[in-house]
């Protein structure tokens, strides 16, 4: 590992100033991904600015009945939080299906959202990778890409985003609050992430020195009849536990009078960002909540898939998973 300076500033403004003023600086929170990447030589910061003790450790209700989650909250605490379990069960499910208990105890919400891809070539500094070294090439297209993207990829990069949390937050219409050298701003979570295009080195729209301070959720949708939140996160992986998603789905569905009143659907494991399935949502709005309608809508969304030699299985998997999840939710409503 390359040597680096370490600072633990007392307040967010000082942290932003430190990182903004040092091109090779990185924020450190739980460190479960960053420290690993430093060991691998993928990340070589000259300065780590520790933000894990800044006052972003609270989970609180908002005035509108939503939830504000501090960026420094650890994943395990958020998954166990009573308000999350009662009102946003898909969020708890997504967190608990990711990583191991040890990692969830250390990793923060902000860091989870900014984790880097697990593409083998990105993590191996002896190989070319356009995300790690722009212009060096992408061996994944011809090589090991079974886990990689089928939607929104480019000739330069087919990496996937591996955060389960981000997929659930995408379906829950979360907003990300940021602070940075130019002040504070907020973004829909789905706008935080970029598709690779010809700049795969940029995972997100964050500017250097910008820091996630919190994630905010609007009030949860409820069915007209019951007070149970109609949402679910389901993940398919190679092992029963402690593995990244091959495909995952987060869905919110409210069926009234046998028709789709409200639907939100997001896929994980398919793209460089959590894939909010807006075409499928549009196709379903107001339609009868039948399996045929679900299949048709999901196929419309997935028609943009461009699979490679080894990852074409993701299309059938994503379709069946999404249809099964929507059918289950429709049956519960």
């Amino acid at each position, binding site marked *: 590992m390359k*040597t680096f300076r*370490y600072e633990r500033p007392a307040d967010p403004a000082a942290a932003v100033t430190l990182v903004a003023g040092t091109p090779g600086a990185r924020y450190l929170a739980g460190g479960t991904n960053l420290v*690993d990447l430093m060991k691998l030589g993928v990340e070589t910061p000259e300065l780590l600015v520790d933000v894990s003790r800044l006052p972003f450790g609270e989970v609180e209700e908002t005035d509108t009945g939503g939830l504000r989650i501090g960026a420094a909250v650890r994943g395990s605490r958020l998954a166990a939080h009573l308000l999350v379990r009662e009102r946003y069960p898909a969020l708890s499910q997504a967190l608990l299906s990711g*990583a191991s*208990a040890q990692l969830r*105890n*250390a990793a923060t919400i902000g860091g989870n959202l900014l984790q880097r891809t697990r593409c083998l070539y990105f993590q191996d500094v002896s190989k070319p990778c356009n995300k790690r070294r722009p212009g060096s090439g992408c061996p994944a297209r011809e090589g090991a890409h079974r886990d990689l993207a089928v939607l929104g990829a480019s000739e330069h990069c087919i990496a996937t985003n591996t955060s389960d949390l981000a997929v659930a937050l995408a379906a829950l219409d979360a907003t990300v609050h940021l602070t940075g050298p130019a002040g504070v701003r907020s973004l829909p979570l789905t706008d935080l992430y970029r598709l690779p295009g010809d700049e795969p080195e940029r995972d997100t729209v964050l500017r250097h020195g910008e820091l996630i301070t919190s994630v905010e959720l609007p009030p949860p949708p409820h069915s007209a009849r019951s007070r149970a939140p109609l949402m679910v996160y389901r993940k398919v992986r190679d092992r029963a536990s402690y593995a990244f998603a091959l495909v995952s789905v987060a869905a919110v569905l409210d069926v009234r009078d046998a028709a789709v009143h409200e639907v939100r659907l997001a896929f994980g494991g398919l793209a460089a960002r959590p894939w909010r399935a807006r075409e499928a949502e549009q196709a379903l709005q107001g339609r009868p909540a039948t399996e045929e309608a679900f299949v048709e809508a999901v196929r419309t969304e997935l028609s943009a898939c461009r699979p490679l030699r080894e990852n074409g299985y993701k299309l059938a998997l994503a379709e069946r998973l999404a249809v099964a999840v929507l059918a289950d939710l429709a049956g519960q409503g």
Partner: protein
Amino acid sequence: MGRTAVTLEINAQSCAFDLDNRTTLLDALREHLGLTGTKKGCDHGQCGACTVLVDGMRMNSCLLLAVALDGAQIITVEGLSSDAALHPVQQAFIDHDAFQCGYCTPGQICSAIGAITEAASGWPSAVTPQERPLGPVPLTAPEIRERMSGNLCRCGAYVNIVNAVTEAAEAVGEAAR
């Protein structure tokens, strides 16, 4: 530059270090304090052999920079027994022959202690039924398998590890009552 003064409370003893910033908690324990009970397996947070308790929470010590833990309370496998009596989880691992080579065992034991605490605190896992009422989660075999999935055992002693954790959870629960 590149070094920082750090104080950690390790197994109830205050330890002051002047550390290279790159030092992980795992290396601080093994190389600076000679506490070699905590094992280095993969050194990338994938195997769980390095699991210790940080402020009561189980974590992978190989992924934690020691400088970032200033003031934290660390418990390693060396700090579990008291007055020559083994911790109930340690005793259960012996009683159930829950290891073969033993390399993963310190991490398994620290992780099991964390898992028992988390379940007793009502923390759900990925296999906890959503409709379950709030409160302590019983550590059934499927719960233990899911909650211990961050600890690999290449000898494959998993069957007996589940038995050991099952019994230890009951013993710890009874002691708490």
